[in-house]
């Protein structure tokens, strides 16, 4: 594992508000964070502290109201949705707490989906999906539908889908939240492996146990970074 000096992600004074008709809630309050290429970072904090908001902005699913977000030396804070989607599909993989697989597609087809959207040729897709399914040890389940799998297996499929495009960054939102501890540990091992092969990982979690797999823990409170722990 090597952590390079140039930061992959640099956010400066990032702000995000949620407005309803009468109330304005501050989700991120002038937050500044740097994350280097190859790092494994855990983001922790109580409910409503802005963890998920941060993850969504980092994943370019949402845009900030103010501040700067530089991804691989590109300022993306004010990108259009289309530009963000293009950048996202080549660089970022997502893993969710609730797996978010498409029920109508088989394991194979779910994992294949990102390759379709990046325009990879069909023969190449088969090769890459099989490769990653093999790696995740769910090859034997390739023709099953998500509802036929256990939670642990579903999360493996979700991780397979997140990595099939060989993204530089994986964002995981409580990836073990819906799993028992044994399956949860398996998933954390998988993420650690990926990180060791060079993928940057940012994970939101409530679990101190899971956070211990990371290099660094950023603790948020009320939209601000209150503490960083460097793991040894």
């Amino acid at each position, binding site marked *: 594992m090597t952590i390079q000096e140039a930061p992959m992600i640099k956010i400066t004074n990032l702000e995000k508000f949620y407005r309803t008709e009468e109330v304005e809630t501050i989700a991120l309050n002038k937050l500044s964070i740097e994350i280097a290429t190859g790092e494994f970072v855990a983001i922790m904090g109580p409910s409503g502290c802005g963890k*998920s908001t941060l993850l*969504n902005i980092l*994943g370019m*699913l*949402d845009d900030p109201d103010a501040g700067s977000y530089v991804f691989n030396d590109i300022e993306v804070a004010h990108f259009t*949705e*289309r530009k963000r*989607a*293009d950048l*996202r*599909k*080549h660089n970022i993989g*997502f893993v*969710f707490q*609730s797996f*978010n*697989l*498409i*029920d*109508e*597609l088989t394991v194979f*087809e779910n994992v*294949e*989906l*990102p390759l*379709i*959207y*990046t325009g990879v040729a069909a023969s190449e897709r088969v090769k890459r999906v099989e490769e990653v399914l093999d790696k995740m040890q769910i090859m034997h389940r390739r023709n099953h539908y998500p509802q036929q799998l256990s939670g642990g297996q579903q999360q493996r499929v979700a991780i397979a*889908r997140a990595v099939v*495009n060989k993204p530089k960054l994986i964002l995981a939102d409580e990836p073990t939240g819906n799993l028992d501890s044994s399956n949860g540990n398996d998933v954390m091992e998988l993420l650690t492996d990926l990180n060791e092969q060079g993928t940057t990982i940012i994970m939101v979690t409530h679990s101190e146990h899971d956070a211990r797999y990371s290099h660094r823990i950023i603790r948020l409170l009320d939209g601000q970074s209150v503490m960083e722990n460097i793991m040894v």
Partner: protein
Amino acid sequence: MIRNYFKIAWRSLINNKLYSAINIGGLGIGMAVSFMLLIYVYNEFTFDAFHQNKDRIYKVMRNQPANGDINTGDATPVQAAGALLKDYPEVEAAARTNEGYDQLLNYNNKPLKFNLMSADPSFLNIFTLDFVKGDKAEAFKDPSSVIMTESTVKALFGDKNPIGQTVKLNGSQLVKVTAVIKDLPQNSTFKFKALIPWSLYETMQPWVKESSWGNYSFLTYAMLKPGVNVTTFNHKIKGLIAHNDPFNKENELFLYLFKDYHLHSEFKNGVNTGGSIEYVRLFLFLAIGILFIACINFMNLSTARSERRSREVGIRKVVGARRIAIIQQFLGESVLTAILAFLVAVVTMTLLLPYFNEVIKKQLVIPFHTYWAWMAAIGVTLITGLLAGSYPALFLSSFKPVKVLKGNNSGGKKTLHSRQILVIVQFVFATCLILSSILIYKQISYIKNRPVGYAQNGLLEFNIEGSMYKEFENFRRDVINSGAVVDAAATSLSIANAGSSSWGIKWPGQLPGEDKIPIDQIVVSYHFIPTYGLTLLQGRDFSQERPSDTLSLMLNEAAVKMMRLKAPLGQIVKWQGKSCTVIGVVKNFVWASPYEPVKPVIIGFDKGWAGQIGLRLNPKAAVSKSLASIEAIYKKYNPEYPFQYKFVDENFNGKFQTERLLGTLSSAFTLLAIVISCLGLFGLASFSAEQRKKEISIRKVLGASISSLWFNLSKEFLQLVIISFVIGAAISWYYMNRWLAQYTYRTDVSIWVFVATMGISIVVCLITVSWQAIRAALNNPVKSLKNE
């Protein structure tokens, strides 16, 4: 990528069978009905369009001013064709025909009736007839020739070669088959099965040749040379009648494009005012309307399921799908659904078309073998798919992945709003149809219950043919003696259908110009009044005991009123060139349109003018037995001819054909619109129930009863239905009043019609919505609250 879309679409259809069935079925039935209407519309627009010279063929029409009005008709003097051809170089060809009617053709003692028309030889050059056997140029060389259609030949000769065969026409005249043509297309004005030359018609009916310029009995067609401007030409022939018939110098002839006549056959004051084009427009409107509400349905049901599809959209966006890709996907799904619906439509259409044909009295066929029909059908299917999928695609693709993956998509309120508008559009359409159906039926029953002025039941009529002309009195005596019939009379026309008038009638105290007014006439022999059950108000019926009655006539009340005769009996009225004494006045009877006030009628006496026989059945005898004995007696006197009769009440009911057609179609479409709209409402209700799951659960936890929850969920839909009712009622009120305005005798648009319609709408709405509402109300609150 496309494969992936279709895969998802297919699996999503399979996994939601009820939803898919409602969606595909609803759209399919909508398409089927819409396509059938479009076939009808196409059929009407291509009526008479198969004639190669269609843009140069004209019908010669007649304008006849009388009493401040101009009557327009297509009956013309027999000399018109010759005069047009001789004096106007613009005319390339002209031909006369009579109205074709059923006549007897007998080959090898096999007498069969066929629609036979007579026409000048030039008819064959003006119109496009498809000659299968024989030579067009030679076909009418011999005056005793006949051209037959393939089906006529098949019926008469079987597989034998008909050319040169001789058949007996109407029991006496021998004619030789000189040519065979293909059966005329069903969208043709001409319906004849056999065609004889005009010269033969003149031989058989010598009066035709003698008839004057003032006798308007025949149809004339003219083909102008290419490039001739018809407006200019019509201006030129304005004086044609005046030149040849100074007595009727006000009357004018003009040409009207033949192929347009079928849809534009109504004239008011000499100006074309449309005709059945109105129905074609109505059908076109219905076709588009039905398809549109089926599409709305599709949109409603698709967006109703958006909750369940939103997560998929979110995931696709997260893994890299652009919005356009999502839009493509959902459009792909709706196009797939539309294609499946199209297959349902083809099957439905095949099953329904025979019934539809029966209702509209046409022989429409599905044009399976024409490529343009497939192109059009596929085009409509694709457009339907794209239209129906447009809203769901735009709506679903707008989801923000961040929100939907967290399960709190807040687009709900807004979508409910636009979906409410869609449902209102549907229900406005349905309301209009319900109201129209009720009013059309109300109008028909109103007219049907109007007293006709004669005894319609137990009255039958048939044409006088063959030997019946001379044997009528013997026949009458025998059928009365047999006990089958209580009385019988010969008349010129059926009492169910007016069709004869004359002018030049003079009466005491007549104002100048009144002799130009055409007055309806029915010419009868003895026993007319007792046979038909008319009411004699003054005077007496024609009597065999008084030979002078050959110079007498009767009037109806309307005629007495028009002629302003204070004491009509004994007055002298000049009719058909004879001075006749008025011997009786009958109560008004409905002879012409049952929708119009009764017009003046002259009941003239002329034994030689008979065309129909009317029989008053013995009410004490069984009808089937009476008919059998009448037929036996008929065969005795007229063995050559089959006994074909019509009951007057049935014949009379034929006058309501258009209204009944409208009524049947309107109620069928009403049912369809209600079903389709309910599917849409069902979709909206399930959408709303899903959206309000949490609210319902909280209310339930706090102690709300099932019935209060049911009311709570149902009331928003009741509001929609009531709004739709108000809009629909306003539109219908306007249009139905306009529709009714064309009838002099019309029912009123009463309040109960609206109350009933609103009642129907509310009941239907509650039934549809309650299922979802009760289901939602019965739901376990713990489940939905835990999901939050």
